């Protein structure tokens, strides 16, 4: 196999012997749906297609599969099935959690605490509440992207109605001290929400042990289908509706249930959590080999995120003098799918708000690469990336006016 030629002007496209198999290392953006999951979903489209709210046999069957999925989700996070509400994804779960708690507690207070490195589904939701007159504190993070529980304590007032801090960050993989933060919130009688979209299936989650009152999750991040998610709502948590309409989800989330999707979500979360004890250490070993290999072979490179409190599948590195999109497109030409930060902001010109919050200068934030592993990745994939990536960076640095001569 021939690799990327580093001579400028050489026709990389034609000389490189494209690997037939794609090296997909963007599992934080989305994951393929597992074949076992598709298989569970299929009969719900064409045969067991009933509307679970109807009364006849076909519909009752649909309700049974729905309730099975609810139990699967509940079991995965140590919750009661009655506390699981299906949504159209992580974004809806975040919107509902935050807007719902804000609306239901408006008389009690108007202050929300979150972090500066949340996903846009949280940040933009908070900003939209700010326009309605709520006040929001965006807690700073340290250079590794960690929120200090003491900063929550400082920020809390008697008008605080919600603390929302993500379990693990989607860009840099940093895991937050969620239990400690929840404890601070509870000491002040404030409910705690966490966006666990990236954490499910990667690290153990137990809503009781961790003191979580509301938790968002999204099916397509762990082998389930896109357009599915759930919000865990601890019993007795005060929260309004977000989606108004029919009496589905015990009257709290309207809309005909996406039965095939929910069935897929249930199956996927069950598999993901069952396989975690084997999978997470395996991915972590590949992750560490990638990080070590990149830092050793490519000069002027740094690791973004926390060195140890980190998702087992997340690599995020900043290369000086080069820009992210160029890295991605060259890797793409070489059959490697990766990203700079979160997928949903890749069209934007702004540097990642997460990396900026961690203190990276703008150019370095622009020159970051995220590789996120999944179960189909092999050691051979890691070898390939470690062989190709240094050449890509070298090539781009030769083009860069910022590189030292």
């Amino acid at each position, binding site marked *: 196999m021939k690799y990327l030629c580093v001579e*400028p*002007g050489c026709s990389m496209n034609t000389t490189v012997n494209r690997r037939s198999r794609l090296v997909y290392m963007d599992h934080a953006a989305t994951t393929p749906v597992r074949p076992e999951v598709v298989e569970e979903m299929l009969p719900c489209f064409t045969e067991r297609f009933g509307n679970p709210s109807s009364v006849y046999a076909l519909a009752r069957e649909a309700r049974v599969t729905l309730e099975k999925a609810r139990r699967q989700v509940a079991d995965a996070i140590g919750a009661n099935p009655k506390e699981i509400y299906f949504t159209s994804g992580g974004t809806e779960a975040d919107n509902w959690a935050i807007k719902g708690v804000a609306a239901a507690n408006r008389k009690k207070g108007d202050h929300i605490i979150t972090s500066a490195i949340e996903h846009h589904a949280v940040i933009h939701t908070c900003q939209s509440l700010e326009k309605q007159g709520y006040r929001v504190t965006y807690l700073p993070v340290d250079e590794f992207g960690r929120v200090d529980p003491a900063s929550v304590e400082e920020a809390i007032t008697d008008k605080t109605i919600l603390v929302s801090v993500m379990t693990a960050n989607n860009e840099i993989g940093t895991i937050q001290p969620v239990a400690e933060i929840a404890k601070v919130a509870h000491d002040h009688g404030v409910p705690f929400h966490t966006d666990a979209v990236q954490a499910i299936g990667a690290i153990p989650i137990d809503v009781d042990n961790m003191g979580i009152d509301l938790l968002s999750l999204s099916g397509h991040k762990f082998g389930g289908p896109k357009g599915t998610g759930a919000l865990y709502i601890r019993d007795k948590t005060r929260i309004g509706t977000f989606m108004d309409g029919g009496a589905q989800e015990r009257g709290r989330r309207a809309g005909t249930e996406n039965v095939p999707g929910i069935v897929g979500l249930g199956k996927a979360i069950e598999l993901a959590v069952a396989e975690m004890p084997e999978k997470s250490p395996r991915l972590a070993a590949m992750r560490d080999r990638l990080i070590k290999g990149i830092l050793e072979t490519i000069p002027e490179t740094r690791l973004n995120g926390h060195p140890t409190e980190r998702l087992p599948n997340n690599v995020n590195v900043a290369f000086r*003098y080069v*820009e992210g999109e160029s890295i991605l497109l060259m890797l793409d*030409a070489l059959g490697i799918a990766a990203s700079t930060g979160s997928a949903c902001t890749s*069209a934007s010109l702004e*540097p990642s708000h997460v990396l900026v919050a961690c203190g990276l200068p703008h150019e370095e934030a622009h020159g970051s690469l995220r590789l996120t592993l999944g179960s189909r990745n092999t050691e051979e994939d890691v070898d390939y990336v470690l062989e190709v990536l240094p050449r890509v960076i070298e090539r781009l640095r030769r083009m*860069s*006016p910022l590189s030292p001569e």
Partner: protein
Amino acid sequence: MYSERVMDHFMNPRNMGEIPDADGVGEVGNPACGDIMRITLRIEGDRIVDAKFKTFGCAAAIASSSMATELIRGKTLDEALAVTNKAVAEALEGLPPQKLHCSVLAEEGIRKAIADYRARHGSPEASGG
């Protein structure tokens, strides 16, 4: 997202590099995206005989630099000044709307390099120098 032309100039950039002791140098940056481009020119008489670029930026910026240097090579300074970002984008078979500014960077880089040359070699008007 990108045309084949853009991808070709991105993957196989023409005129990448830096002319030593260039007659004109233009370095421009885009504050919105943080991207930076340096154009170096070799000018003989009124004519651009060589043009090179270095670019820190997205694929559109790299392709624009590559295409822009191609377009101005062999041209007189005035002809080169007539090369707009639109011409660069068209030669690339179009750019996505949010990436049009990358071609503006190329246009500005050329203008700045020519202006640098003229500043060093007399008034901008006295282009016959």
